């Protein structure tokens, strides 16, 4: 299933597009998260943005992870800044994908965080006070949309427009289950091992996961 079908572009995608227009940005993505882990990209302005969002899952670091953890907006006006200490791996990869600045706004309902709206720009530079305020409003709108959609879904179901998770996502979690059985370790540890292979071999998490699921790759006990 394609992450975003042209004509089935979800209302969440439209929020992301609105965000890029309002703030003259190059891309935006809305991640749904649980316990600080990305659980799905509910909207994105393009495939490149999805790759960057997903990168944060592979690396376990990045602006979305930090915005979720701290509950406050996280901004980085220049990812190419050599002295940048936070997210070295993410920054390098994001710059390679053509992103130079990032602004991540947590989606909050009281003290609970349900995800992050991340805004990306291809040139360096921060948001001015008005743009920052617009970002906060957009995050607020996104929260209402997500909850509004989900309120209409069944008790056990995720609303269809929120489940634009592409097929390869499933493989990442299947591979985690397989590694857990292969090594006799917890799922959390299995996921860390999967991430480590992806990072060490400089391959996308989904590729490595695909190899594990196809039984082309089997992790050995260290």
């Amino acid at each position, binding site marked *: 299933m394609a992450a975003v079908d042209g004509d089935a572009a979800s209302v969440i995608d439209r929020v992301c597009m609105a965000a890029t227009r309002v703030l003259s940005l190059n891309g935006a993505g809305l991640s749904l998260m649980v316990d600080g882990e990305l*659980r799905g990209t509910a909207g994105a302005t393009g495939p490149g943005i999805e790759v960057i969002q997903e990168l944060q899952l592979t690396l376990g670091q990045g602006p979305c992870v930090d915005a979720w953890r701290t509950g406050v907006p996280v901004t980085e006006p220049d990812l190419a800044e050599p002295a940048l200490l936070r997210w070295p791996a993410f920054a390098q990869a994001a710059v390679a994908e053509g992103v130079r600045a990032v602004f991540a706004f947590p989606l909050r309902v009281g003290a609970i965080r349900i995800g992050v709206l991340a805004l990306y720009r291809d040139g360096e530079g921060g948001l001015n006070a008005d743009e920052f305020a617009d970002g906060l409003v957009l995050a607020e709108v996104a929260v209402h949309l997500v909850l509004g959609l989900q309120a209409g879904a069944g008790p056990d179901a995720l609303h269809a427009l929120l489940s634009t998770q592409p097929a390869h996502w499933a493989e990442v979690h*299947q591979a985690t289950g397989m590694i857990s059985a292969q090594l006799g370790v917890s799922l959390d540890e299995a996921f860390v091992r999967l991430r480590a292979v992806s990072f060490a071999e400089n391959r996308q998490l989904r590729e490595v996961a695909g190899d594990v699921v196809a039984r082309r790759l089997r992790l050995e006990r260290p």
Partner: protein
Amino acid sequence: MVREQRIVATFVEFADTLIADFDVVEFLHRVSERCVELLDCAEAGVLVADVAGVLRPMASSSERTEALELLQTQNDEGPCFECYHNGRTVLSEDLAADADRWPVFAPAAVRAGFASVHAVPMRAHGQTIGALNLFRSHTGRLAEPDVPVSQGMADIAAIGLLNERQARESHDTVSQLQLALQSRVVIEQAKGLLAERLQVSMDEAFARLRSYARGHRRRLSDVANELIEGRLGDDAFTSTAQPRSGD
């Protein structure tokens, strides 16, 4: 503090409370207590209608049994019953003379030591959602300047209640969202775990999980969770055969 200042201070206090996360029952208790302090009444209580339209006592200025019972007896008759159903303030200036009007409530109120009563509607968005009950130890009605204050107290109780309801509804949706997001992941992980342990394909692993869940009338995500946590062994999934009926 002069009276006007105390009234203003009370409303500011409530406005502050509404902003922070708050306990609605505690809030309504405080409204009742402030009514006794600010208005010429001996006891105050808050009745709120549940989804079926039945009035439930939510808070009162004292835990005195007689006063609580007076709140509870008002589902068929009484000032709050009338106030809730017609959306207007209902009062009795002399309860001893109103035994015909409210045969159960009025004598009970007199026995509890009250001489007059007011019921003020709690309104929000044009709807009456409950009533504020003011019990007085002498006959007569509230002084004219106290009438808008009593309505203000009822209004702030209504706002507090709605505020809490909305917060709770959105929290329910949030939990549901997080559960749904999480259960998808757990099911995929369980598929991988089972496929590896039984050395079967991912599709076959999924078929066995579903077959077990269907056969035992369990939710797929619960079965997946139990497999992951080791509470369900692999042997539960060694074949796709359905369990015996009635199992």
